[in-house]
């Protein structure tokens, strides 16, 4: 285990120094890697650790993006505070969904449908709210300053997103060995068996839902202030909900590093192939690559690439089984 921590510290140190060497375009790719790793991690807290599958996490991205942006425009409130408020609203919404799902025993596909329904309703409602820009969305005023969470160049975004990702990995690692994390895992493995051992599965499911929604909403605020444009069909879309679950699934669900590994594989693949193939008139080919990769992982590395690698590298890194 020690060697693994050493290795990770080394990687982290390299990532801190990396912007000195890279050009703007590549730094931008890294921002996306970190951002999607972070969102994947947030989703992983719910689905990887308690087993409840949400296919509507774009809802929380949207809540974070819209609330901080709206408050910044109307009241000149700093997005640093706006993101916390967005996070709180996301927790409230997630609690409603969680309450309906967990209290009334909606499991499996029925819970999935519930999460999709809420996200899609939110998208359609926002499409018709004029002060939020409706279909057209909101262009953020570009006023670079720390207070506005807006910066010239990609480097500050690089460090913020790196911080989000690293913080989320650390958090999930601490969670999974904690009392709460272990009880969440018991719920994931077998909810009734956990209840029989005195685990309040409702409570731990709700906690996971809240933490996950809060983290996701912070990501939404970051994204809005990185691209300066939000609309229902980007930050509240079904496509985003799917995009953000692919990385933990391919990297390794229910592991602290899975979403990161998944993002380091998928995000560059998507960014590079998108620009490369688009030149050759083959737009959308990256989606096929996604599909092929997902099929290969499901077929040959059932529990994600990370656990596959972990088994292969266990002797080198001296890991416990």
């Amino acid at each position, binding site marked *: 285990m020690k060697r693994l921590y050493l290795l990770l510290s080394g990687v982290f140190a390299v990532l801190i120094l990396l912007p000195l060497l890279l050009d703007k375009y590549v730094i931008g790719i890294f921002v996306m890697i970190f951002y999607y790793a972070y969102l994947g991690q947030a989703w992983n807290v719910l689905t990887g650790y308690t087993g409840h599958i949400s296919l509507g996490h774009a809802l929380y991205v949207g809540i974070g993006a819209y609330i901080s942006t709206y408050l910044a425009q109307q009241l000149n409130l700093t997005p640093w505070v706006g993101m916390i408020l967005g996070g709180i609203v996301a927790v409230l919404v997630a609690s409603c969904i969680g309450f309906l799902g967990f209290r009334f025993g909606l499991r499996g596909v029925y819970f999935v449908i519930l999460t999709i329904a809420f996200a899609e309703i939110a998208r359609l409602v926002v499409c018709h709210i004029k002060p939020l820009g409706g279909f057209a969305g909101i262009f953020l005023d570009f006023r670079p300053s720390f207070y506005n969470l807006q910066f010239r160049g990609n480097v500050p975004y690089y460090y913020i997103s790196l911080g989000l990702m690293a913080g989320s990995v650390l958090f999930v690692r601490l969670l999974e060995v904690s009392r709460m994390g272990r009880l969440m895992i018991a719920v994931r493995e077998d909810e009734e068996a956990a209840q029989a051992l*005195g685990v309040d599965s409702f409570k731990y499911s709700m906690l996971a839902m809240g933490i996950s929604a809060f983290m996701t909403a912070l990501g939404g605020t970051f994204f809005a202030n990185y691209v300066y444009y939000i609309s229902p069909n980007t930050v509240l879309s079904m496509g985003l909900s799917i995009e953000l679950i692919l990385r933990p699934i391919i990297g390794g669900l229910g592991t602290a590093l899975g979403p990161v590994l998944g993002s380091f594989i998928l995000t560059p693949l998507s960014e590079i192939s998108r620009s490369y193939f688009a030149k050759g008139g083959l737009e959308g080919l990256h989606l096929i690559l996604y599909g092929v990769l997902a099929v290969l992982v499901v077929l040959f590395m059932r529990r994600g690439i990370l656990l596959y690698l972990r088994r292969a590298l266990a002797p080198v890194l001296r890991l416990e089984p």
Partner: protein
Amino acid sequence: MNALVVESLSKNFGGLTAVQGLSFELHEREILSLIGPNGAGKTTVFNCLTGFLPLDSGDVRLGDRSLKRLRPHEICRLGMVRTFQIVRPFLNISVLDNVLVGAMLRERSLARARAKALEVVEFVGLGRFSNALAAVLPLPLRKRLELAKAIATRPRVLLLDEVMAGLNPTEVDELIQLIRAVNQEGISVLLIEHVMRGVIALSQRVIAINYGQKIAEGRPEEIVKNPAVIEAYLGREFLESQG
């Protein structure tokens, strides 16, 4: 003194009566067996006692506390824990971590819970496997794990649902020793069992049910000779052919 009192418990599934007016009590420190042919309603009784199914009527009391309308984890907290007939290990975590889930119920500190879990793992004879994933255990060891998880919650009443089914005679004998040891710690045991070797070796009293109703109650050696019990298992014709 009674550890558990069941009073005219009834449970219907639509038009089907699974349990009908069943009453019994489990004494403090006793081992009581609940037997009956397949479909007699034994597991339904367990599900009603532990809050996994709501009762239609009747009452269940643990000590002097009514368990009606309590949820499964609350009942476990009050000191009654069950195992499942089809064992339900947490497959993707280690044997020790499985037992730790139970141990954390009474220990807020993780370190102390782990020490307790390790103790229980050793006690049921799974010490060698404590770091193995539960998924690699074969059935006889999974049955022990099921028992270990339950004991780790430090219950006053332990409900065992066919822990001996599918084991060979040697394994059954080992499990009998284990359950006896658990009982000697002061835990009252209610056993659902088909393996008569286990029932006779362990229980002070036996209750036989059929179609959700009690048909006989008594000491194990009386119960196996009871005509109503033999009829329930083997049919009236068999009984008549025996004269």
